[in-house]
């Protein structure tokens, strides 16, 4: 029994951050069996955060963000080929090239892709971009190099805001359109959203909130855009930053609890089937996973965070090669960072899981602060702006469910610590998704489905 755990065949679908880290961890933990990584993208695993930052600024070429390797993973790499299906009975992954890969245990790490512009004809205009892959980043960076007259960014979540920041740093004219009341409001709430809005405008962004883009115009090439308030702008580049779609379509017939919100799994990264029964040989990690978190009332969380992909992949890998009693839960406190408009933003906990917020250190005026979020009287998140060093302290408050608002007494408490509503909008009000989604307790499909005979 023990021997079996360390050998056999493991297949990982999704050869990016979570997939690679899981593969490395499997070998670190003594897995000696055969390992196959299947990835749709042709290039070896690379890092995405620099794509919207250093790459767009032209500081790092798009093909130079390869992930550092911690060790050789001794795997068969099946790159440039999509997984199209999963046969859970025959324990095979089906590939687009017609091949099948058998497995004893499977890790699903297929992440997300950029949500495309909904009108295909408009999306096909030359000058319309999305940003998720290094290929997309390369093409967008080239276009920015060419010096467009105006860039339109649709959606002011983290990715959209970072793109706008990079464009301004290059001296390009930028319009940002956001359906919600402010940039970043979906992830950070109203107080910091207002700060972000002020900063974008101070950096010369033509920021338009509470509007949507109703049409992209052009004849072959993008020339401009129409807004819901009746206004119109000229633009020769548009970046669609409307959030991400989870890559679960290939699992449609698998009988797993996989849907638009991700693959539901337990705290040990084991996937549930559609009846809510946990599997023992199929695991999920990274942006694709949707898992219960005790600090947030066991609600299912979907995260789009680099650190979560790493931590969850390590836990999944550990559990794939360890018998039941030695398995670990993935209970990491969510953490996220972003850099834009000269700000270093870091977040711990889940800011959207909040009803109130207080500026516990620093001030909005100086754009150097720590905002602490609370839900029903306990601390659930903290976000620092240019002041990351004390976040460890707030992480402990989150982990210990410390009372909200936190007691005053910080050395650099400048603003009066009065909690205000956190103003986290309904995600439906946003153009993009929040980077943390609370997705409720239930697997996606609540119907009873009769398993088709095979």
């Amino acid at each position, binding site marked *: 029994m023990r021997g079996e755990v360390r050998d056999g065949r493991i297949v990982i679908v999704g050869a990016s951050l979570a997939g690679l880290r899981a593969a490395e961890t499997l070998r670190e933990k003594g897995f000696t069996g055969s390992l196959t990584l299947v990835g749709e993208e042709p290039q070896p695993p690379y890092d995405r955060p620099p794509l919207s930052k250093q790459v767009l600024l032209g500081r790092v070429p798009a093909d130079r963000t390869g992930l550092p390797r911690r060790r050789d993973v001794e795997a068969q790499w099946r790159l440039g080929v999509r997984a199209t299906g999963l046969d859970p009975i025959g324990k095979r992954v089906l590939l687009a090239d017609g091949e099948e890969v058998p497995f004893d245990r499977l890790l699903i790490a297929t992440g997300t892709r950029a949500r495309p512009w909904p009108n295909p004809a408009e999306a096909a205009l030359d000058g319309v971009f999305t940003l998720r892959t290094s290929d997309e980043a390369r093409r967008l960076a080239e276009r920015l190099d060419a010096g467009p007259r105006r860039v339109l960014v649709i959606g002011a979540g983290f990715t959209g805001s970072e793109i706008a920041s990079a464009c301004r740093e290059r001296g390009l004219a930028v319009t940002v359109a956001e359906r919600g009341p402010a940039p970043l409001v979906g992830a950070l709430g109203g107080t910091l959203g207002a700060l972000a809005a002020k900063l974008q405008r101070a950096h010369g962004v033509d920021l338009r909130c509470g509007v949507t883009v109703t049409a992209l115009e052009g004849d072959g090439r993008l020339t401009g855009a129409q807004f819901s308030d009746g206004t119109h702008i000229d633009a020769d580049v548009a970046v669609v930053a409307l959030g991400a779609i989870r890559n679960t379509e290939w699992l449609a017939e698998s009988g797993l609890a996989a849907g638009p919100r991700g693959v539901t799994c337990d705290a040990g990264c084991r996937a549930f089937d559609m009846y809510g029964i946990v599997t023992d040989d199929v695991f999920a990690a990274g942006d694709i996973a949707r898992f219960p978190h005790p600090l947030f009332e066991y609600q299912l969380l979907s995260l789009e965070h680099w650190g979560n992909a790493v931590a969850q992949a390590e836990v999944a890998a550990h559990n794939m090669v360890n018998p039941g009693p030695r398995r670990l839960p993935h209970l990491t406190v969510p953490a996220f960072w972003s850099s834009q408009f000269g700000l270093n933003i870091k977040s711990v906990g889940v800011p959207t899981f909040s009803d109130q917020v207080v500026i*516990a*250190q*620093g001030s909005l005026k*100086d754009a*150097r602060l*720590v905002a602490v979020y609370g839900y029903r009287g306990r601390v659930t998140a903290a976000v620092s702006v240019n*002041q990351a*060093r*004390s*976040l*460890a*302290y707030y992480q*402990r408050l989150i982990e210990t469910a410390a009372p909200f608002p936190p*007691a*005053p*007494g*910080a*050395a*650099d*408490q*400048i603003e009066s610590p009065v909690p205000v509503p956190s103003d986290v909008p309904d995600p439906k009000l946003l153009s993009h998704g929040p980077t943390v989604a609370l997705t409720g307790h239930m697997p996606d499909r609540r119907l009873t489905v009769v398993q088709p005979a095979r």
Partner: protein
Amino acid sequence: MAADTLFQRITDYAHRADPYPLYAELRESRVARQEDGSYLVGTYHEIAALLHDPRVSSDRRNRTAPDETGIGEEGLPPAFIGLDDPEHHRLRSLAMWSFGPPHTPGRIDAMHGEITRIVKDLIGGLAGKERIDIVDDFAYPLPVTVICRLLGVPIEDEPQFRQWSDAIVAGIDPSPGEDPAERQRAAAEARKTMALYLGELAGKRRDHPSGDMLSAFATGHGTDGQFTQLEIMTTSVLLLIAGHETTVNLITNGILTLLRHPDQLARLRSDPTLMPLAVEELLRYEPPVQMLPQRTPLADIEISGLTIPKGVPLILMLASGNRDPERFRDPDRFDPAREDNQHLGFGSGIHSCFGAPLARLEAQIALNELIQHLGSPRLVEDPPPYRRSPVLRGPRHLLVEPG
């Protein structure tokens, strides 16, 4: 009873050569209240938590009992090491502007060649000697020369500011039970004289800038604001002292530790690429800064089930945390290849060591070159005589005979 006198025993010179058993005793009580009302913390996780706790101040003026160190008596405001954010941040960033990222990321890296030259010169001077004092002949002159070049202070004035520096370091020594008044008056005097000296140097650079840090401080830069003359004085005193009082101990403790572990010495000699990791281990195993004696809670802080009251002196025993078995496996073992070595040698949190990149580079080059050139040296005296300070702990002399 034991806990009451623990800090006295730690600071007692008799225990300077090996304070580690006392630290083990401290860790047992986790947080130890002392007779004079101060609190000692010696466990890793608790220290790390307090270093990141925004309710812990570095500004001694927040103590409830009047401060007795004499700092401030000379009419100078504290340097950034003794201030809290946002003042600390402003001054530290201004100092960082000409030292590190984001504005001057390459400065320290670019000193690689120069530091190697200085090291080789010093080693050249050792040739033919039958007895070497690692401290006076090598570990002290190296960082002094480097920090002087970096700041733009004439090395000829070294005997001068060595006296001042000795007096200032003596002034921060916590020696419970002894009347520190005289030492502290001398420290205040030295601080003032040194500040005036550096202020005057900076004044000259204002008119004739020469690419060093004092010039950068004096001429100002960019959009991030500018130092006042008084701030230049306090900041450069801090950097000049911190720039050499600590690195000398890092290098000396390093050689001493390696001589006590000949197998590791041989390993490092045959593979110099291990040195960066070995220096990290030295910072854990024998940290030059043993404790941070100047923290003060701004609120009652509960830690390990105990409440540290607002306004009391809070002393964080970094060297003890570095040997905490709850954090480091086999903590009393010197293991240059140790993984997951997040030591407290440079502190942590907003005050984490400003000069860390420089100290690392100097120690790596110095130790690598020295062990290549010394053959199999013999320790003349073990333990060697130590400096007085329990805070900046290290041998005063380290006599070796080259093999």
